[in-house]
């Protein structure tokens, strides 16, 4: 099937999974027994195969089967470190959430089947226009919940920060980089392509969810000190950015603004492939750090840039990409998304203007916070001096791992500089999924201006920017060379204490403190201090802990779980354990049914 959307996702999957696979050769070595490595590689292979199947099949039943295989295989990969209690727990949360999501998908597909009498995509697409409006709305909501669970849209993201960090790093890279994107594929395929967008509120709802996902994801990421968890939360944020593009495209579609719908979808797809690349890269780097240092806790890392220069360089490129710094790829896609918002605000009247402007502002805020987050991730992990013996004994990873990282780092740069070419390719994908002929439309980074009134005077080209940045870099290097002689190396000024060690360094928790205060209305931080000593005035030891309240877990999932368990306990009363009573239940049920169908 030469469907552009499927081809695009095929390419995305392969771009990330192949380097991850090469990386895994070095990563798994010595961590596990040969047998377990073989098992892991077979599972990985199945996982990639099932993802490829998900994006290529053209039948809803086949899609569901591939989707289930993907979910199950990824569950086994999450619990791959089966000796860790945490992995089992993470796997359980994951498998429960993902199946709850699949249940909604099954319901949505059956509803589609009921009205179109076919499971085949093409036939469904033809017949889907006859579905009554309220059924369409229900199908849309079900699909959004079903795919949203997999994508990690807030508040359905709960499994993501548990499952992704617990899997081996190359799997995290595939899960975060690619697997959650299959859900975006589902959204585009089933909502935009098959169902067709008619109502404005669909796009608006997706945009609102995108705003929430972005902000919640990045704020939690900022608070994290586990480097892989930080990356997992950042995935939630980036799914939000992708949804900005997708939701905006839906919004424009419902308003019949086809050019901008294509443009917004290009932005979304561009960010999708970008996120696949740099999140894959970052997870591989994090895995490299984890393998070398034996810990994922950033507070215990530090100074790795000297012992692991290649990992550090790759992580830096990934972090710059994800922070949307020009001229890397993240910049291009977020720039396009922002442009789409500005254009939308420009071309729509009244409150829509305000809403789209607000979305743009939220995207900008997210980007800023993301930059702060990755300054923290890179700075605490790689800069300064080692904070513990873990970080001191770290060494650079083997060749196969370096290859995986360098390959993706290279792609990060290529996708930034080659934006003009890639946009044109993506325009075909977006056009085909929206059902719009794009041959007459022109898309270019250079033609898109910051403000329509400014005309072409304020256009931006990544290549020019790259040139400027290289020149600035050269200038800096020259200045450094010329004035190097004047530099004196000396200890950090320590107020006359003279015994500074690694424990006096800036910590990840310290770095995020201002933001914890700024977002305290949402994070609800609390602290516990414990003092012990002979008297109140003479304290021998003191512990201080600060935590943030997991709002979604506490206020949504815990009550739901409590109700479930309570009702299960209640239902257990009818279960005495006696076979005779069970048989009696069956008999009574049959009698009641016979009476109910009025045969007697």
């Amino acid at each position, binding site marked *: 099937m030469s469907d552009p959307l499927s081809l695009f996702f095929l390419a995305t999957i392969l771009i990330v999974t192949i380097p991850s696979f090469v990386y895994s050769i070095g990563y798994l070595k010595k961590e596990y027994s040969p047998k377990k490595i073989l098992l892991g590689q077979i599972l990985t292979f199945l996982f990639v195969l099932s993802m490829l199947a998900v994006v290529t099949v053209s039948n809803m039943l086949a899609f569901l089967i591939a989707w289930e295989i993907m979910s199950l295989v990824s569950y086994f990969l999450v619990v791959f470190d089966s000796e860790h209690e945490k992995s089992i727990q993470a796997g359980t949360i994951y498998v429960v959430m993902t199946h709850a999501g699949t249940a909604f998908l099954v319901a949505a597909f059956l509803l589609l089947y009921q009205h179109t009498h076919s499971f085949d995509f093409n036939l469904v697409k033809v017949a889907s226009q006859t579905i009554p409006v309220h059924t369409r709305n229900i199908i849309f909501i079900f699909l959004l919940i079903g795919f949203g669970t997999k994508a990690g849209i807030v508040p359905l993201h709960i499994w993501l920060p548990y499952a992704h960090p617990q899997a081996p790093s190359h799997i995290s890279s595939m899960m975060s980089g690619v697997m959650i994107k299959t859900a975006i594929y589902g959204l585009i395929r089933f909502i935009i392509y098959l169902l067709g967008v008619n109502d404005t509120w669909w796009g608006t709802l997706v945009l609102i969810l995108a705003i929430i996902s972005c902000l919640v994801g990045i704020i939690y990421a900022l608070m994290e000190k586990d480097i892989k968890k930080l990356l997992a939360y950042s995935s939630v944020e980036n799914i939000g950015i992708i949804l900005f593009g997708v939701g905006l495209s839906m919004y424009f579609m419902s308003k019949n603004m086809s050019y901008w719908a294509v443009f917004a979808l290009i932005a979304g797809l561009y960010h999708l492939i970008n996120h696949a690349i740099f999140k894959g890269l970052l997870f591989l780097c994090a895995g490299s750090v984890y393998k070398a240092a034996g810990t994922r806790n950033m507070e215990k890392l530090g100074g790795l840039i000297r012992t692991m220069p290649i990992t550090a360089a790759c992580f830096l490129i990934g972090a710059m990409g994800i922070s949307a710094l020009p001229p890397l790829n993240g910049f291009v896609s977020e720039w396009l998304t922002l442009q789409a918002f500005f254009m939308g605000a420009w071309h729509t009247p009244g409150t829509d203007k305000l809403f789209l402007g607000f979305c743009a502002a939220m995207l900008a805020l997210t980007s800023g916070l993301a930059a702060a987050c990755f300054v923290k991730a890179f700075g605490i992990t790689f800069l300064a001096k080692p904070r513990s013996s873990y970080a001191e004994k770290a060494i650079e990873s083997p060749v196969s791992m370096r290859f995986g990282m360098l390959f993706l780092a290279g792609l990060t740069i290529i996708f930034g500089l080659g934006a003009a070419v890639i946009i044109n390719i993506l325009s075909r994908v977006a056009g085909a999924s929206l059902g719009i002929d794009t041959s007459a439309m022109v898309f270019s980074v250079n033609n898109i201006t910051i403000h329509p009134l400014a005309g072409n005077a304020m256009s931006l080209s990544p290549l020019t920017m790259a040139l400027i940045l290289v020149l600035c870099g050269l200038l800096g290097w020259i200045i450094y060379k010329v004035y190097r002689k004047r530099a004196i190396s000396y200890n950090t000024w320590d107020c006359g204490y003279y015994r500074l060690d690694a424990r006096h360094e800036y910590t990840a928790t310290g770095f995020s403190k201002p933001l914890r205060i700024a977002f305290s209305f949402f994070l609800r931080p609390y602290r516990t201090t414990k003092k012990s000593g002979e008297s109140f005035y003479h304290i021998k030891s003191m512990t201080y802990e600060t935590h943030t309240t997991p709002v979604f877990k506490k206020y949504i999932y815990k009550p739901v779980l409590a109700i479930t368990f309570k009702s299960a306990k209640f239902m257990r009363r009818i*279960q*005495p*354990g*006696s*076979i*005779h009573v069970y*048989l009696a239940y069956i008999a009574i049920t049959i009698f009641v049914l016979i009476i109910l169908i009025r*045969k*007697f």
Partner: protein
Amino acid sequence: MQGLSIFGLLVATFLMVIAKRTPALVRSFRYQSFFLFLATLVIALEERQLNLYVVAGLIFALKVIGIPYFLQYTMKKINVREDLGLIANTQISLLLSLGFAYLSWIFSKQLMSSSETTAILPAVAFFILLTGMFLMIFRLTAMAQIIGLLIMENGLFLLASAVLGGMPFFVEIAIFFDVFVSVVIMGFFVYRINKLFTHIDVNRLSRLRG
């Protein structure tokens, strides 16, 4: 001839209801199966179909000889109390089964909505079904449950041949195999349960619940 077999089926079923010991139950099951065989044979003679002859032969081989023999063999092997463990005593059981017979008769008449002669065979079938279920619920041992299931199967078979003139041949054969295999499996399980818990009183398995 058909009247005789129906009468025999009823008597055998009532005998099962008042049975207190497992051997008596197995023996009554054998009688019931024999009369079922007779009823099928009569239908076969009327319809002159090879299928029905084969089915009747299978009933005789499996239900009259094979399964009862296997059950007796299992009982001898595990060597347990012969007591069935009555939850409802024989008098109440008999009264209840009379009620079942009446209900089946009404139900059958409603269902067939034609002459009383065509309604009688389904009525007996329903009665046997209900009795089988009753025995499964109101007898304690696992053996009673197995036989209860077999009785229900007999009832089902009779119902199928009375209402539909027999099921398709392959379905019939498949069911026979199912029944035979399930009896073997259940017999084996009873044996295992007896070995593990030194009794086959199903009621005492209740502590195994989740």
